[in-house]
């Protein structure tokens, strides 16, 4: 009976998960679309001049060039008219063309998203490796001073803006040590500084959560029982400690995407990395409304997908969740 349940539970959970994913994605798209439209309109200054300056350089821009842009993009239509076209296009998946470069937004995003995903993934894996190793080691060592050190360093790293970490790392590793390129992209070595900048803040939080969860699991009766029955320490760690501490850690690492997205905007523009964050900053400066929407939408959907992935990982890791779903589905 218990053996048959997970197959149907898996399909059911998958279907529900996908439905939830689709609903969330739709809601995020609608909210992002409306907010972007409102935000860009609320920014001070005449959008036509700003877009013209982004296209041709402000030296060249005069009233004639701005008027031409206004006519071309229909910026002189009433706002509700523009909002209607805007949401209609969004519903059809038409993200339009960048007002600055004139290229389709989808093409630009495809180019930038790859760069951002590569960087985020590298940073996140680095943070995961460092955070899990340090957190587990501190919990196992059971030394108070090490625990305090982890808390202080973690707090300092999380409180330091990514920009400062980037500046310090680039000054040390690129200028003084001459080990790495200070900025740019293209080679594997270009990944090190930006991903390390992002990873340090993430790893700090992850190490603390890992340390607390692992500490808690270590003090449970089932770990004590496993030890008493004579299970070798590595097996205790793998089968009981890590398995049980994995769920809170996975859930926490999911919330870190917020930090990652925030950091990516700063880190990409500092290290001249051609990703979504960099594009978002430039699109905002240039009032490139379709690009602002496209990049924000991309980040929002990334977040939705990531949350879904974390849910799935937790579901896989924790049999209790699966059992819970089984009993739910039988009701």
């Amino acid at each position, binding site marked *: 009976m218990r053996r048959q349940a997970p197959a149907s539970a898996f399909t059911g959970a998958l279907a529900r998960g996908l439905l939830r994913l689709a609903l969330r994605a739709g809601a995020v798209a609608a909210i992002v679309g409306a907010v972007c439209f409102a935000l860009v309109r609320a920014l001070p200054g005449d959008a036509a001049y700003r877009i013209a300056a982004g296209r041709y350089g*402000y030296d060249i821009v005069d009233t004639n060039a701005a008027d031409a842009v206004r006519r071309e993009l229909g910026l002189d239509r009433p706002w509700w008219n523009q909002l209607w076209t805007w949401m209609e296009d969004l519903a059809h998946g038409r993200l339009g063309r960048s007002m600055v470069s004139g290229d389709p937004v989808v093409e630009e995003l495809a180019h930038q998203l790859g760069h951002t995903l590569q960087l985020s993934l590298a940073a996140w894996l680095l943070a995961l490796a460092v955070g899990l190793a340090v957190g587990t080691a501190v919990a196992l060592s059971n030394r108070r001073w090490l625990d305090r050190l982890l808390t202080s360093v973690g707090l300092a790293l999380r409180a330091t803006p990514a920009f400062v970490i980037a500046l310090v790392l680039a000054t040390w590793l690129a200028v003084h040590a001459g080990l790495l390129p200070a900025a740019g992209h293209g080679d594997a070595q270009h990944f090190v500084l930006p991903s390390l900048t992002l990873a340090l803040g993430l790893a700090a939080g992850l190490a603390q959560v890992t340390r607390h969860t692992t500490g808690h699991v270590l003090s449970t009766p089932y770990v004590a029982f496993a030890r008493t029955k004579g299970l070798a320490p590595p097996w205790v760690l793998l089968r009981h400690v890590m398995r049980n501490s994995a769920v809170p850690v996975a859930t926490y690492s999911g919330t870190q995407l917020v930090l990652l997205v925030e950091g990516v905007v700063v880190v990409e523009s500092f290290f001249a990395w051609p990703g979504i964050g960099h594009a978002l900053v430039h699109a905002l400066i240039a009032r490139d409304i379709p690009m602002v929407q496209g990049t924000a939408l991309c980040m929002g959907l990334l977040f939705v997908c990531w949350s879904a992935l974390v849910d799935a990982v937790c579901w896989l890791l924790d049999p209790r969740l699966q059992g819970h779903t089984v009993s739910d589905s039988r009701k």
Partner: protein
Amino acid sequence: MHNDPSPISRRRTLLLTAAASLGSALPLTSFGATDKKVLQVVAPWEIGGLDPSKTGYIFTRMQITETLVNVDPSGSLAPGLASRWETLGNQLVWRFKLRTGARFHDGSAVTAADVARSLERARNNPGVLGNAPVQKIKADGDTVVIELSRPFTPLAAFLAHASTQILAGSAFAPDGSVKAVIGSGPYRVTSVQPPQKLEVERFDGWTGPKPAIERVAYLAVGRGETRNLMATSGQADLVFTHDPANFERLKALRTLKFQSLAIPRTIYVKVNAGHPALKDAPTRQALSMAIDRAGIAAAVLREPAAAATQLFAPGMAEWHVPTLAPLTRDLTRARELLKTVGWTSGPDGLLRRDGKPFKVTLRTFSDRPELPTIATAIQAQLREIGVDLAVAVMNSGEIPAGHKDGTLELALLARNYSLVPDPVGTLLQDFGPNGGDWGAMNWSSAAVRDAVAALSATNDPQRRSVLRGSIATVLQAELPVIPVAWYQHTASSSTRLVNVSIDPFELSYRIAQMQWARAT
């Protein structure tokens, strides 16, 4: 299988998936040292597209594309893709003969028809050529013929502007858009990744002197801090535009050569001369006398030579008038001048006239990071003579918009006189009958207007010199714009490079003439 997997195999699967995704995320990359044979250029300007009217200047500066006309180191016009030119028929017809043997990077010969097509496009897109009285552009054998509706002497200078660069026929898509940058310069594009990266290599079909540098990479880096790190770490060989705060440190480094050069760009205060408080010339003169230009140049721009004594910098040899009485700081004289036009000091130290305080707003923008800092310095300096100045840091577009709707009072901006190497084009826009978006506002001078118009119609050097002198004199006396500083262009180059020179007109990075200090 998923019914009873062991936790370890599950974890292993997860880890393998993660490792595989990282592996696939890093395609075609290698952990190798940067190829030192590639010259790395770093500048703040992003590649906004392939069309010459957008950021086409990046392609001319990288010597990928050419314009018909060039500028030599002395600032005079020189042959580019045109080997020579002449005017006929009362200066209404210009004939540009193309350089023989010129080839595009796709191997095809540069024809007059190619040139005419590129120029026709430039005329219809935003840029300088639309402001010239061009009637017709046509090909005649190996010559491009441009017909004008009235004489216009700066035409050749207009044809040095990057928006008039010449592209091959194969550069255009069927809809007329630019699909590839195929020019005729000494370097050809090997890869272009807007908005940041561009890679070029030496073009073998170039008939001029063979460049010593074989491969060049361009990277757009928006942040000054990052450019500074790239220069000091030696990652970049040629870095343009440094933050003033870093000048001293860069000068002290032995691995770098730091250059600061006055370029034809002036930072000035645009004045709404129709505003009740600003309409009298003595008031504008008093404002000018309250500005501490030497202080701003030394403390904000970190270059004492940047303090402007007149509108045109000494580098603009034909336009700078050495005999003109310089603009200086004189608070006593400023207060006297203000008294003569009815301003009196109130109990709070602020000026009043007819019961109204002297309260104005200065608009500026942060695209050029020094402008807001200079604006607040001016705010403090004008406070000393009793002017209540508010500073509004806005979008650059608020200046032309405020000019148009009349709400602008004062604006601080940097005006480029090298858009075309002959500033007449810019002056025509700035000091015309209705002023200009970036120039005078509610101010006009028949003398200046006539002199600028006459300048664009005469080639007589003597007469041109007299006309230029008269324009500079009127502008200095009436101050429709109040000059503050001459812009300094800064660049650093690695000592691995020799024969580095900076083009004050920013038309070219002059890479073709550079060499590695020793073979690497």
